[in-house]
């Protein structure tokens, strides 16, 4: 099918884009188009206006900040995949990006677009949840910082206002002695994950877990940190079987089922993914802690 008619706008500055959003009705913002274009082609959405951010150079770039990494919202997934700075400062993001789409879609798909589209099974929102990322949203009337945990408002819906654009995504650096891992299960490589997990584990030189973060995706409308699983680990001395208890806490969380994957299967699988992510993160944390 073909998109319904719309008026296309191609601002060259952020200011022009914000002006358009403030003025126009029934607008969609076009980032990389790898989710919005299918929705337009299938006529799942039929905006009167499309505002393309593709020519706004100030929205592209990867930079090191005092406490981590900041990415312009229009930075492509491919640029993230190739960035040595991302590998060094935010290795969880590098590990996850391998699972995002195909090279043909990563060449155009952007981090800001993925976070705003909020597909329940998408990798980048899960990484943003695990790392407690901050989004910078700008409108004509000002700018605000939004913790990613507060960003989703429902299925494929963020709390972004219609006149706002996400311009920047900030990821805090990992504490010393922190291991990371991203794992997912999909029927074929690059398919949407049935369940995915991201884990961060900080282990000190006495082998005590100082901090744990576990986020899972695919269970509900948006990725979630699982506090019960994190609490099962923090303060504990590392031992065999400990991580399985965190996996069990994840598997006890409610999950939505669909025609292909019933909720029990998804819950079980989320527990397995969480345990595998934790094992991988623990291996990395413990080898880092003894350096």
């Amino acid at each position, binding site marked *: *099918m*073909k*998109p*319904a*008619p*719309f*008026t*296309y706008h*191609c601002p060259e500055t952020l200011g022009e884009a914000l002006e358009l959003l403030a003025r126009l009705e029934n607008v969609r913002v076009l980032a990389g*188009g*790898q989710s919005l*274009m*299918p929705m*337009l*082609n*299938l006529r799942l959405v039929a905006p009167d206006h*499309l505002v*393309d951010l*593709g020519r706004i150079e100030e929205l592209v770039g990867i930079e090191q900040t005092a406490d981590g990494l900041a990415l312009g919202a229009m930075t492509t997934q*491919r640029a993230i995949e190739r960035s040595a700075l991302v590998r060094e400062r935010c290795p969880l993001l590098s590990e996850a990006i391998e699972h995002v*789409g*195909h*090279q*043909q*879609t990563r*060449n*155009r798909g952007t981090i800001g677009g993925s976070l705003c589209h909020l597909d329940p099974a998408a990798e980048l929102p899960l990484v943003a949840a695990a790392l407690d990322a901050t989004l910078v949203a700008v409108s004509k009337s000002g700018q605000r910082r939004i913790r990613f945990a507060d960003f989703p408002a429902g299925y494929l819906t963020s709390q972004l206002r219609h006149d706002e654009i996400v311009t920047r995504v900030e990821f805090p650096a990992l504490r010393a002695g922190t291991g990371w891992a991203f794992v997912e299960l999909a029927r*074929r*490589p*690059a398919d949407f994950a049935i369940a995915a997990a991201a884990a961060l584990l900080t282990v000190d030189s006495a082998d005590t877990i100082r901090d744990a973060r576990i986020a899972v995706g695919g269970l509900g409308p948006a990725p979630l940190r699982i506090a019960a699983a994190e609490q099962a680990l923090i303060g504990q001395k590392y031992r065999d079987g400990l991580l399985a208890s965190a996996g069990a806490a994840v598997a006890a969380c409610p999950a939505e089922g669909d025609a292909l994957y019933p909720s029990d299967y998804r819950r079980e699988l989320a527990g397995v993914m969480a345990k595998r992510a934790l094992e991988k993160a623990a291996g990395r944390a413990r080898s880092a802690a003894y350096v």
Partner: protein
Amino acid sequence: MSKHRIKLTVNGSPQEHEIESRTHLADFLRHELGLTGTHIGCEHGVCGACTVLVDGASARACLMLAVQANGRSIETIEGVAAPDGALHPIQAALADHHGLQCGYCTPGVVMTLIELQRETGRRQLDEPEVRRALSGNLCRCTGYQGIVDAALALFGSKT
């Protein structure tokens, strides 16, 4: 609805056309320029049949508006063989290894492999790398083995 005048380069030749805002790049190439080698399979970014190169980077032509190609350089399957009709080495390898049958997915496969070849240069690739690169191109005839064999014959280590 809006109309736009776009200037771009397609297979090295400059083009200037007026198009409707909602026309996607694959339809522009096929209907306006008559370059019907870029095939449309699913038209929502899943099958990879419409893969073209945009400023050298592979992209789904159904997931990009023609107006977004303004000022860009597009390469399609029509620009791949030599002017005298001699096949590109990737096309020849696909023919030699039974890497195509009905041919519907082949233009997308060729464009993906051209990007892979340019990016990896002389470095030898292993089978997982080749399969990962091809994961965005669906083929219903070959079971992929012939395509992978062709790619490995060109840029793999023969073991």
